[in-house]
């Protein structure tokens, strides 16, 4: 034991000593998996100032410039600081294999190894539909199944559409900076095959000061577009939000909404639908959130996009055989979720009475994108599963999960009727701390709501009405309700019931900057105060539930889905898509360089 321990300890010591000796950073990072022919920026950051004559960058022992066909920009003082960087923008490696990249400042050398992979020469799938339930966790799925299918004699009366897809895997979601991701670097992993850090889209997180200056990697939207596919992104969040933006965006800061609108425009992806119109309006228009006078709606129209602001306009545009591009903006903020849109009419439904749901958006998108002969890539996001889990609004999150599955069902039907050559992937970007713990029964004895919670055999079954034709129970405030709880919370008042008057706001910031329970719910009959277990001060003080680091489930069907199995990295999903569409063909890649 001693003999084995000593060298280990020595090695650990050496590693600890070696780490702070400020090695240079190389992007893409060590162990990056890079699609052959995909474009990326290669950046080297030296810890101090380095003369141009001593800085060396090699790939597989050869001068990097000769390998990638262009020379590096040498930045002696990056952002005015005493640090030197090298950057090679927009390079590609067409040949598959291991690449050893070495950067030297004349004294110290840092080495990273990349794996560049080619795809099969021939595409297995014509189309890909990537479904992302934002924050969609196992408990949401279980709850949606119970509410939309019902149970008899201990068995569910049916499965969700996603349950019946043949392939399944667990995906780990951690990023380059943390075991917990946000929707930016989580979606980025799917759309680029690279890992990144919280808040980042289409870039590695370097030390660059400007959010748009970080080393970029090509996105699925850009790659597919460049290879002749029609591309779409539809969501019920603001379209600039992280998940749909991951199809095309390159920024270290996901809140760069105005830049992201420009990136959507520059990408010319074919179908773009969601909320978030204010960032498309010139600043002179009241209600705009732009800081310039560019009228992006006008720009999109000039570029040949049909434009829709309501479900009716969307349907008319999609039904027109000539429509091949559509910009649809249906709300100034997020599109309302299923529970408000279809039943309660709260949120912004009175202001925007003709919003499409995610299912309708997806059907219109498929109609338009399938007019492209080569095929299409479509991202469909049910964004508010996450937003309602942040706000600890269980019922709204569950109804949006039912909506999500309804979209999967429609996509499966469409694929079956149209050649069965569409790869369908259904997953989440990250998890929430949710769990189904039983039921709440108003008719249980006593007034104390806590003692109306049924566990084990007392939970029994909830008494929601049978689902309607769309799969939703039409009454959510039944007397015996599913109890879905949140594990990681701020201080809040637990009300044990659905929020019939509008989305829950569990906590707010007080004048001292501390996140405190929202007093609005204090007097709801039966409400009790719950002390939170998340930080309540500082920049990450939580006024709502937050993401967790649990694995997420990926289910898949159609050509290429056989590669989905076991436990995978989230970045592996990108490779499944790239392989299915042959986005890194060996022959095509050779021709490129």
């Amino acid at each position: 034991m001693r003999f084995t321990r000593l060298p280990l300890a020595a090695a650990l010591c050496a590693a600890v000593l070696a780490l702070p000796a400020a090695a240079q950073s190389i992007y893409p990072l060590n162990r990056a998996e890079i699609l052959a022919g995909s474009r990326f920026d290669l950046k080297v950051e030296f810890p101090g100032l380095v003369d141009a004559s001593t800085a060396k960058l090699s790939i597989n022992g050869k001068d990097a410039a000769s390998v990638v066909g262009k020379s590096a920009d040498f930045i002696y003082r990056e952002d005015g600081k005493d640090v030197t960087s090298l950057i090679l923008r927009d390079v590609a490696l067409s040949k598959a294999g291991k690449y050893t990249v070495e950067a030297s400042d004349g004294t110290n050398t840092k080495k990273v190894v990349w794996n560049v992979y080619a795809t099969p020469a021939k595409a297995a799938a014509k189309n890909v539909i990537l479904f992302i339930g934002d924050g969609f966790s196992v408990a949401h799925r279980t709850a949606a199944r119970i509410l939309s299918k019902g149970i008899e004699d201990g068995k569910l009366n049916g499965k969700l559409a996603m349950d019946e897809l043949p392939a399944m895997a667990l995906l780990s979601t951690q990023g380059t900076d943390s075991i917990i991701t946000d929707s930016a670097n989580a979606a980025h992993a799917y759309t680029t095959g690279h890992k990144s850090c919280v808040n980042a889209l289409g870039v590695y997180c370097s030390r660059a000061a400007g959010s748009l200056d970080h080393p970029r990697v090509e996105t699925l939207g850009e790659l597919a577009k460049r290879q002749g596919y029609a591309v779409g992104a539809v969501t019920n969040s603001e379209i600039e939000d992280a998940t749909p933006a991951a199809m095309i965006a390159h920024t270290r800061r996901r809140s760069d909404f105005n830049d992201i609108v420009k990136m959507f425009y520059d990408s010319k992806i074919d179908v773009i639908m969601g909320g978030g119109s204010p960032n498309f309006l010139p600043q002179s228009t009241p209600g705009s959130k732009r800081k310039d006078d560019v009228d992006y709606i006008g720009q999109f129209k000039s570029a040949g996009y049909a434009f829709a602001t309501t479900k009716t306009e969307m349907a008319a545009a999609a039904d027109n055989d000539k429509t091949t591009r559509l910009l649809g903006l249906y709300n100034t903020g997020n599109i309302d979720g299923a529970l408000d849109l279809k039943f309660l009419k709260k949120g912004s439904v009175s202001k925007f009475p003709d919003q499409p749901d995610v299912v309708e958006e997806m059907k219109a998108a498929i109609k338009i994108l399938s007019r492209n002969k080569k095929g299409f890539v479509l991202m469909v996001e049910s964004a508010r599963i996450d937003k309602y889990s942040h706000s600890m609004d269980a019922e709204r999150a569950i109804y949006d999960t039912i909506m999500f599955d309804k979209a999967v069902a429609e996509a499966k039907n469409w694929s079956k009727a149209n050649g069965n050559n569409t790869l369908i992937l259904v997953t989440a970007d990250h998890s929430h701390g949710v769990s189904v713990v039983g039921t709440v029964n108003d008719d249980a004895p006593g007034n104390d709501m806590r003692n109306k919670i049924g566990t084990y055999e007392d939970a029994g079954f909830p008494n929601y009405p049978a689902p309607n034709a769309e799969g939703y129970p039409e009454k959510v405030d039944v007397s015996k309700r599913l109890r879905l709880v949140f594990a990681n919370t701020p201080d809040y008042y637990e009300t044990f019931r659905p929020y019939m008057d509008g989305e829950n706001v569990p906590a707010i910031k007080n004048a001292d900057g501390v996140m405190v329970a929202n007093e609005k719910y204090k007097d709801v009959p039966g409400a009790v105060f719950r002390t939170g277990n998340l930080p309540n001060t500082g920049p990450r003080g939580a006024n709502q539930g937050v993401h967790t680091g649990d694995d997420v489930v990926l289910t898949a069907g159609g050509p290429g889905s056989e590669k989905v199995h076991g436990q995978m990295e989230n970045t592996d999903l990108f490779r499944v898509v790239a392989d299915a569409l042959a986005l890194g063909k060996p022959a095509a890649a050779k021709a490129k360089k």
Partner: protein
Amino acid sequence: MPFAPRTGGARRRFLLALPGMLALLASPLARAAELLTFDGLYKSNTVLGLKFADRTLALKGESVRLRGYMAPPLKPESKFFVLTREPVAICPFCSSDAEWPVDIVVIYASKTVIPSNFSERLEVEGRLEVGSYTDPVTGFVSQLRLRDAVFHKIKDQ
């Protein structure tokens, strides 16, 4: 003695008249500071933008009152804050004005603002300014502002 009741009567009439006179004095002030509502500020609120109500445009430069909630200030020690229709639940990733509601009103208070409670409804009174304006310090773009504003908590709301 015969005079006494008359005097008393006059005095009583004077006392009775006092609240009425105060009301008369106060009413022109109340008219100057018309109470506006968030809903009433706009004629329409659509995907293509907001259209100001005729009354909003007519009151440009006038003193008006508006009720809403103070959003947590973007910077401390400032006269600037954002008034919203409902208390805002700030998302953990909003480092910019990207996710603010579109119908916010920016308040430039007459004194440095000391925040008290963001879940308390406030009444703000100030001079109405209409049109796009970028705050030079925060870069925050607004369409409506109340200048030289004073505010107080509303008790029964």
